């Protein structure tokens, strides 16, 4: 089954998304450096979402995790 998934869902696809995710994290870092302190919170929030894909950002905010 895992092999079928690899055919349907190429590894490069996941690699691209990972690169884009990192690009966004970098943008958020830059924004926080120019004064948007909220960008750090969003960056942290995304890091948690990365590890917990079953949670939405709203869940994390509501639970005061961020």
């Amino acid at each position, binding site marked *: *089954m*895992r092999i*079928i*998934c*690899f055919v*349907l*869902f190429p590894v490069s*696809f*996941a690699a*691209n*998304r*990972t*690169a*884009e*995710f*990192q*690009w*966004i*994290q970098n*943008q*958020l870092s830059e*924004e926080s450096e*120019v*004064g*948007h*302190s*909220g*960008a750090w*919170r*969003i960056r942290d*929030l*995304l890091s948690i*979402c*990365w*590890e*917990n*894909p*079953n*949670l*939405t*950002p*709203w*869940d994390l*905010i*509501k639970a005061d995790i961020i």
Partner: protein
Amino acid sequence: MITNCATCPAWAVCKNTNHLGVPPSKYSAPSMVIQYEDENESRKSERTQVTRYSSRSPTGSSRMSAGPETIGQNPLELWQNVNTNHVPLYGRKANNIFMQMQDQTLLGSFEPMEEEPPFLPESGRPLFYLSLPAPDDLPVEDTRRWFLSTRMDAFLGFQDCFTSAYNRLYLLSAFTPPLRHILLAFVKYINQRDRLSEADACMLHIHKALPSLQHAITNLNFDEGHILCIPLLAYLAFWWNNEQLAKSHLRGFYKMLLQAQFLQQDRQGKIAVSKDMPSLLLLMWRVAIRLDHSFGFLRPDDEIFPPLVSNLDASRRYITEFIASRAAGWTDWLVLVDELEDIHSLAVHFNRRTEQVRRSNTYTPVEAQTYIEQAGNKIIRRIEGSKISILSASKEYHTRFGPYLSTNLYVDLQPFPTAELSTYAASLRTVHHRFIESLISNRVCIICTTVTINPRAGPNPPERLAAAIEICCAFYVLKKRMPFATHGRGRALEALMFAGYTFCNANNLLRTFPCVLRG
């Protein structure tokens, strides 16, 4: 410190309490609490009087809080001494201290701004330098009034389009002392230099306004001027870090508009503006909606207003009426922004409704998901329609006005990590940054809706992935064109968050696919 934080929906999230806040004053900060509910409300509603542009004196002056008898060396004026013809009543300049003072620069005034010409309406008469009567017993300060039109527009996020609206707001306040007080308090607060030096006067104006405002509301005898005070109070409360009070004012504003029948609510709870709603109230209604959306930043449950029914004709009416001639080209864009806000409201309430449906025992999980997907797909179609409108309006704007848009930035595509991002960037070559901002808001709505349907991180469904890629490109172009944003970037940050959520750990899909297939 970014000076434009106050317009940023992420301002509360940043939790930068050193910015804005309550200015220190020798007078205590007014509570600004207004009771909008009354236990006898239903009884009183039978004898409700809602008047427009009432010019009579407000009742309940006996309930006004005790203010100072003098302001420095200035004698006091009374509201009853209205001089509608603007005839000088103070005699000769040689023996009148007020006329002499008019030649002096007021302490704390913003020197560079004073060099700008006064606002000239079509009649050629500088309205902002006319001496309207003092609200009651506080001195008139002509030199500060023009801040209302020049700064308020930028502060409320309409980007120099509605100067004349705030001019009219000021003139309307001649008939409603509480509105004059609130406007003057607002003006003293929004200018950063005045915020500290004029804090006492700001507090006094609010102290003066609230009792008569409360009296009018309690007796359900308010007019348009009273209603217009409320969103301004909501903004002040928001900037004073009192979010609950700001929400209370927004609720009050909404109730007053319903009471005055300027808003209508259908059986499903959706609200629509009536065709009789004055243009100025329409504008402030949209201002209030923007503030409400600020509360919903990352917290959709915190938004106050019920779902909104789009009325683009009403939007076009107030925009056409108020828009400055030099900004007339932005009419279509402003209408689209209003529509986007209504769509945002729709997405927020879809999110809330979805939670209720998922928790309900009435539906099985499969049924609930089916209903959610059906409703969500309708919303997605509407959002896609809005995107087409934005692109179409952008194209028309570009054709008509041909704005100069830097193209050098498209040469350097290195910052983009993948080919998909590079492909989208070229499509934004001829899109003005205002339309790009609208596109970002539009794409956020798509992702929010798909997350509501499928509350899981990752690039599924395809609409979500496409929207995330477009957000990245739009953000990059926006940042290149405007490294120093003229207003808050909160919406862009929120968009980046949703895009990041879409790109989150796509490897997880490899782990979840077998489970899905087994299920």
